[in-house]
């Protein structure tokens, strides 16, 4: 697959960053999303407003924050408030993009970050919802970033931590979740996927460089919708890689 010019993480970061439009808002959690947002700000989205869970808004992402409450999340910011203020802004519809990851994902984009096995006697205790459920409930468009494997892309997840499209069309609204929200894209080391409007099931959109449909199908534990026409994801440009390596994550915490 991807040649040695870049690694899978760098690819996912650049793909995610390209999904964010300028003059918009993104709810940023720790890890890859921070790098994607920082990269977007330095590229096509200088006016992307980065919103951090614990209160930072409009920070200039010069140095990579290591934590969602890190000083860098409100460094030279425009508004340093508290977690409730930010979550309520999301509840009021102010936040366009949210980023999520998970141990397990199902065909409807529902996510598990809580337990593997039974909740009360877990095989593996995972970190929990954190802000994930709130992001998946309240942001307009959530972008899910994961490594692609049949172990994590499963027909049924052990625990539904964060809502995707639940069990199909209209289910979110029926549950009382804000109208018009839900998973927007799934970005993996193999491809980009979205969700079919009629079934709300995951659909392949674009393959990463050197990746075949067969590879994607093999790494997906459920039936994926494969459209007749597929786009191709451009690899990270030299500029993107330079910014990532020399500006965004100098210390290489993530890449």
């Amino acid at each position, binding site marked *: 697959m991807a040649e040695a010019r870049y690694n899978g993480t760098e690819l996912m970061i650049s793909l995610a960053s390209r999904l964010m439009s300028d*003059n918009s*808002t993104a709810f940023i959690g720790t890890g890859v999303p921070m790098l994607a947002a920082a990269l977007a700000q330095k590229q096509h989205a200088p006016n992307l407003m980065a919103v951090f869970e614990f209160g930072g808004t*409009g920070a200039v992402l010069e140095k990579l924050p290591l934590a969602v409450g890190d000083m860098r999340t409100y460094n030279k910011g425009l508004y*340093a*408030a508290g977690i409730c203020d930010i979550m309520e802004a999301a*509840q*009021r519809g102010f936040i366009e993009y949210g980023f999520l990851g998970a141990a397990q994902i199902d065909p409807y984009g529902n996510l598990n970050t809580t337990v593997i096995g039974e909740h009360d006697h877990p095989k593996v205790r995972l970190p929990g919802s954190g802000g994930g459920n709130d992001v998946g409930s309240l942001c*307009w468009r959530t972008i899910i970033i994961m490594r692609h494997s049949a172990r994590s892309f499963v027909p049924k997840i052990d625990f539904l931590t964060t809502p995707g499209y639940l069990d199909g069309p209209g289910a979110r609204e029926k549950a009382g979740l804000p109208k018009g929200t839900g998973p927007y894209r799934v970005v993996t080391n193999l491809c980009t996927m979205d969700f079919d409007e009629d079934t709300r099931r995951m659909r392949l959109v674009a393959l990463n460089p050197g990746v075949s449909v067969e590879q994607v199908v093999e790494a997906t534990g459920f039936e994926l919708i494969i459209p007749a026409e597929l786009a191709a994801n451009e690899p990270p440009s030299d500029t993107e890689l330079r910014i990532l390596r020399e500006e965004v994550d100098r210390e290489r915490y993530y890449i």
Partner: protein
Amino acid sequence: MENKTLRLLEEGQGKLIQPFDLDDFRALNRAKNKALVDKRCSEKEAISRWVNEGDYVGIELYGTVRCPMSLTREIIRQGFKSIRSAAQGVYEADLLAAANCIKEMDWTYIGLEVYGVSHNLRRTVESGYVETVVEWSNAALAWRFKAAAMGVPFLPVRSMLGTDTLKYSAAKVIECPFTGEPVALIPALVLDVGVIHVNRADKYGNCQIDGITGFAAEMAFASKRLIVSAEEIVDTEEIRKAPDRTIIPYYVVDAVVHAPFGSHPGEMNGEYERDEEHIKRYFEESKDPQKVKAYLDKYVYGVADHAEYLDLIGRERLDGLRIKEG
């Protein structure tokens, strides 16, 4: 799950003057431009662009403190006749009533504090010009803004219970699903337009307020459209130096009006005292409808804008109101 229910114990018979749809509100908030754009404009532009006849308009202030008076006078000047509003004010509500701008009101308190009842409000309500009056407590009204600001349909509260205030409001009382005890639920109040005066703002609308904040943040976040006026316009670098001083972030603001002495004849936290003589005279005269008309003709209709108003009041007089250091 099986059909469990909760008892709905009481429903206020007051009209919900401003029905809300949180998903529509979300869509409007989503559509607001998040870019840093210069939003400065005059009172005239702000009101004519962002306020429509019949709108539900909220004006934030307390007593005569931090009143957006230059914007209130512009609302009157532009001749609105059927504004719906939350009456939680003093001088500004009295003035709007005097000019017959208001048709429906969520009411909590309108009086002139130390100077007693509001004659203009009495006239406009007792005469029936104001068609609908719905009762609330001060906290309930502030909490209704807070509910909207939180993006939720209601907040539970422990006041208003057992009274006619609740009976003539649009609140409801339910059996709490956690405690089993009665609790009042007050509906979110999503404003068409919010009008707030602050100490300083940058051209994008990031606002700082000195001293007590009243319900500025709650109202700002509860407004579909938000007009702020500021005593001073500062560079954004000032905002970035202390982001924890920002009470209202730019992305909720639609218009920024530079209005020095914008609270006159009211006062401004840390900047100037209220014009006691002017207010006292106004409240005296307000007993007589003719004198009220004369007041409006002179101080509102008789001037083209806030600058002319300040000239009329007199720059020297205004400087005399400034708070001396220490």
